[in-house]
């Protein structure tokens, strides 16, 4: 395997560069995926049937907590990648771990939020609005869940094998994924919650 040392390790081989480009393209597809969900959300937003509307059910506190947790985790994964570039494995693992813990906390609040919605009568089967709301949030939440498992796998691999061309590549790609989920959340926050609360 030829390693190009003029580049950061995660870009070190041709395969690594292709992995990163491939992942960017995948994120393009993800943008379409969430774009479709948002478009559907805007279409169905006011079609609440006999169920509650967004203004009836949204609670600002858990939403603020979730936003804070996820945005901070995006910052810490950035720090993790920074530490990785400096070759400081321990610092990197610490930040990586904090990221996952924050993600887990986010997920817990989101699960609470879901229980709340069902409790106040906005279940999956209530109306077109409730269905698209839970589906959009759920798709994002499922991505976060997947990210937690994936991130855990990467941490274990770094512990076992250290910072290699492969593990750095995976970590970098994971960070792209994590930032992306953050961006999606910002859209959810602005166009679903804030718009709904107004």
């Amino acid at each position, binding site marked *: 395997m030829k390693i190009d040392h003029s580049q950061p390790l995660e870009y070190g081989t*041709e395969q690594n560069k*292709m992995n990163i480009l491939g992942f960017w393209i995948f994120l393009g*597809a993800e943008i379409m*995926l969430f774009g*479709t969900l948002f478009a*559907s959300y805007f279409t169905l937003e006011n*079609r609440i049937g006999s169920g509650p509307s967004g203004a009836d059910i949204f609670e600002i506190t858990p939403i603020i907590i979730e936003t804070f947790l996820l945005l901070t985790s995006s910052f810490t994964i950035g720090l993790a990648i920074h530490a990785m570039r400096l070759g400081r494995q321990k610092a990197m693992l610490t930040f990586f771990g904090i990221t996952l813990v924050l993600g887990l906390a986010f997920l817990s609040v989101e699960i609470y939020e879901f229980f709340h919605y069902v409790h106040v009568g906005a279940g999956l*089967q209530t109306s077109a609005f409730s*269905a698209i709301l839970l*589906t959009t949030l759920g798709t994002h939440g499922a991505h976060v869940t997947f990210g937690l498992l994936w991130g855990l796998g990467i941490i274990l691999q770094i512990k076992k094998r250290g910072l290699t061309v492969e593990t750095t590549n995976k970590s970098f790609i994971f960070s792209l994924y994590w930032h992306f989920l953050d961006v999606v959340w910002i859209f959810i926050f602005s166009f679903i919650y804030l718009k709904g609360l107004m």
Partner: protein
Amino acid sequence: MEFFERFAIPHPSPAIYASMVAIGLTVIAIIAGLTYFKKWGYIWREWLTTVDHKRIGIMYLISALLMLFRGGVDAIMMRSQLAVPGNTLLDAQHYNEIFTTHGIVMILFMAMPFIIALMNFVVPLQIGARDVAFPRLNALSFWLFFFAAMLFNISFVVGGSPDAGWTSYFPLAGNEHSPHVGTNYYMIAIQIAGLGTLMTGINFIVTILKMRAPGMTLMKMPMFTWSALITNVIIVFAFPVLTIALAMGTMDRLFGTHFFSIDNGGMDMLWANLFWVWGHPEVYILILPAFGIYSEVISTFARRNLYGYKSMVASMVIISLFSFLVWVHHFFTMGQGAFVNSIFSVTTMAIAVPTGIKIFNWLFTLWKGKIVMTTPMLYSMLFIPIFTIGGVTGVMLGMSAADYQYHNTMFLVAHFHLVIIPGVVFAMLAGLTYWWPKMFGFMLNERIGKWAAWLIAVGTCVAFFPMFISGLDGQARRMYTYSEATGFGFWNMLSFIGAGILAIGFVLIVYNIYYSTRYATRDIGADPWDARTLEWATHSPVPEYNFAITPEVNSSEALWDEKKKGHKLFKGSYQEIHMPSKSGVPFIMSAIFFVFGFAMIFSLWILAIVSLLGIFACLIHRSFEQDHGYHISVKEIEETEAKMGGAKG
């Protein structure tokens, strides 16, 4: 017992029992055959675990041909039913199921794998690469498609086929109007195949952007590679829309949500919109690679370079953008109002312009060329006039006011068959014939091939031209019968005859494959067509590593330059070659996907969860495994090159 009742066919008939027996016997025959000839190990080692783009391409090809046969049988049944007025060969329910599966099988399980087959085989060779960017992912794409196709096809004998049309419009496709599991098959099998297609899209974009031979700038890529690049970009942007639409449809059917229902705020038109936001780009996903093939074939057999290379590229880019802006033309009659309809009429007509540019470029390529009328060229020549008729009627349909007359009639059916058949099917057959020697090391018989081409072209015209007339007379599509008094009988009889001619053409192609496998000479060299692009610069059939030495390129017709202008393609000496290793995981993971899909379709939740865990286990395995591939030594390369008839370069 109650548990098993759900797997019963809701509406059985002798034909279905016959196919159960046929499927059973085929499976037994395959298993027995493999066991008797002791081929299990061979199949596993060389095919089921392969990550070689050429073998994956060939597997796509075989699957596509099988599905062509399945879809063809559907077609013959439909045309037989309609051949005479008041026919009772099929009843309404069976007719519904058959036109539904025909559409899905032909578009998603025949045309898609066919283009992906040729892309897989040809693109890495045309750009001088060893394989695609992610060989393992490529295998996963194939196996996901393959198991999805199998899943879809068992619907016929287990639980019942979907019957709401390939467009599966709600509320018809909802539980109330389609109570049996057929539409679940639609939602889930297409979802699984779509995942595979999306991965193909990503894989090929990276391959084409990153793995081109030295010297091959973007504007020096062969036209088929260009078309593949643009097609894959459309795939990446269009398929996620389908993913979401199918997920919402699945939830409506399985979890009682109200996305597309007519009560509790649901909106049936949302499905129609999402479906066609994917659906119209999808027709261009099919046609652009076909255009790429025609560009290669026409320039090879006109013995001159392609006219208007830049405008070819530009028109494809424009088509890919516009393809996302026309979807409403599929439901002009469904209540948008005149303003919206007018906008989409204009975009629809505009898309015919870049298409027209391409047609003129081909004509100009032919104009001063020295035409050699081989079978692939014959298909191309038959394509131009028939496709133009299909395209012009498309523009007619695109005029929203007039579409109130044409919509949902046989006129529409004539339009899309007359673009898809000459556009996609002819192109695939041309490509198949053209690249066959590269795949298998011998040529298909030209005489039989030309007979087949003519029969298929004549059959297409005879089968579909009458539909323009009966459609304008008011014959609706998707009706299982009509009365004598309508006067449609004559035109439908003609269509039936045309379908028969088409069928004979396809049988001839199968016969040709058999005949040529037995009798054709294997002594054809690397470049039997006197072609122009890189794939012809290596041996036929292609060695596992594609090129012993990575070629260096100076134009879009690198091989032609070597032959005529003294360009040197292969410089330097043999080096050790790095290859990706085989893996059974894509196959196993996709098989688990099959089980997962089946469990979802029949709401077997425990099985669904267990198989989902299995899928995760495969992902985890992949993440933790360390696989650096293997190397082919210089000595092995020398031996292979010698065995293949001397070194290249």
